[in-house]
């Protein structure tokens, strides 16, 4: 997925560019996000455009790739600009400063448009190879000499070991929180003394020795949900 952030303020556009790139990394979406000023032409192959309406004479002349596999997000410091923006029917409108939680929710609603750019994992299940989009893999656990993968829709048993499975999962998103568990950081909503709570309500055990590292890894990803600036050194 090629994304472009078009804003007049260089600091703002670099920050949003970094935020979207981090989001894409966490959700395991292959993406290249670039920042540019509104005077530059939007590349024809861009499938995500975040455009700042402030200080620009006109709304972007951009149609996106054919087939509707694109998303247009607009922002402005003037809330009334939301009404003007209906002239080009964006997928979302934000009042500046762009709230990162709202930005991530809008991007999530567009994931289906970039389906071909998602990262997948293949596992052996019942003698056949199964593909699972990594964004839907919530956690995995050791199970009967193999592993049990829990996704947003199903649980899949494989004879592959948790260790072998973990070797194929990106470290920026998946963390070995306990000897028998790997968890997807993107879906964690809270961390207690002995477990992590996921968005679907599941509680995943955290090893005593791993808790500090899990907290650190989670802190590096949680800025998405707390609308704070991404911390330095966040996983890419």
């Amino acid at each position, binding site marked *: 997925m090629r994304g472009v952030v078009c804003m007049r303020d260089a600091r703002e556009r670099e920050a949003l560019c970094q935020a979207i790139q981090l989001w894409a990394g966490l959700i395991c979406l292959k993406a290249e996000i670039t920042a540019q000023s509104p005077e530059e032409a939007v590349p024809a192959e861009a499938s995500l455009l975040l455009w700042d309406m402030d200080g620009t004479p006109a709304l972007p002349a951009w149609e996106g790739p054919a087939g509707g596999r694109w998303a247009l997000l607009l922002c402005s410091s003037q809330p009334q600009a939301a*009404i003007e923006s209906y002239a080009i029917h964006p997928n*979302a409108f934000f009042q500046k400063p762009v709230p990162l939680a709202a930005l991530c929710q809008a991007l*999530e609603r567009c994931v289906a448009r970039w389906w071909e750019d998602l990262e997948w994992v293949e596992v052996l299940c019942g003698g*056949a190879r199964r593909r699972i989009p990594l964004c839907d893999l919530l956690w995995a656990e050791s199970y009967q000499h193999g592993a049990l993968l829990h996704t947003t829709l199903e649980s899949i048993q494989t004879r592959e070991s948790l260790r072998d499975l973990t070797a194929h999962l990106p470290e920026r998103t998946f963390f070995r929180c306990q000897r028998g568990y790997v968890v997807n950081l993107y879906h964690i909503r809270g961390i207690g003394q002995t477990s992590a709570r996921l968005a679907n309500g599941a509680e995943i055990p955290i090893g005593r020795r791993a808790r500090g590292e899990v907290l650190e890894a989670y802190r590096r990803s949680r800025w998405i949900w707390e609308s704070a600036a991404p911390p330095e050194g966040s996983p890419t």
Partner: protein
Amino acid sequence: MELTIGICDDLQEERVALAKMVRAYCQSREVAVRLRLFSSGEELLADIQRPGQMNILFLDIYMPGLSGVDTARRLRKVDKRCAIVFATTSTDHGMESFEVTASDYLVKPIRMDDVARAMDWLLERAAQEPRPLSVYADGEWRQIPLASILYIEILGHHVHIHTGGGDVVARRGLDDLAASIEGEDFLRCHRSYLVNLNYVRGIEGCDFRLTDGSLVPIRSGDFPALRDQFISWTYRKAWARA
């Protein structure tokens, strides 16, 4: 295609004026329309019990009782696809309109141009939806909405199109039929079968089990790939509904 268009405004003169413009637009575009008028959000919500009852809704915001924005929020719990066009004196609710995925926001006094612009875009978007399946059956041309088709099977020289409202039999090849169906919801799972994945409840053995209890076979030679296509479609659909 007949559109069901609702207009919800507490002021009768506003309802009547907007209805007149919408009717004039539809007549000029030769679009069949059924207009429904409501004087409050409560009256509207009492009437809308399931998705698909209304295609487009023009919705005032400042009304006694339930506001237009709150009405829209409750409507969205029932119907995510109804196009909502806010028609209001206020310019203060543009941000909230995006929270309920509105299609447009018209500021009163509303002119014919405003209605035409909003309707043009909505009709253009509707035209991009997959076209109904056109078949010649029982001596006439039939337009079958794709959403109503559970699966299609070929028996001899005829295709049997199994829909929620009964079967349609046409003399046509399945290859030709499959090529004319747009969108990604249909899967050629077998030499003799085309299935609408929206009606698949799951896989049982080597068959798709549909929501009406039917079993549709999956070509054994390509079972893993076809199963993966179904699973990928299921995950993608879940994201698209988010």
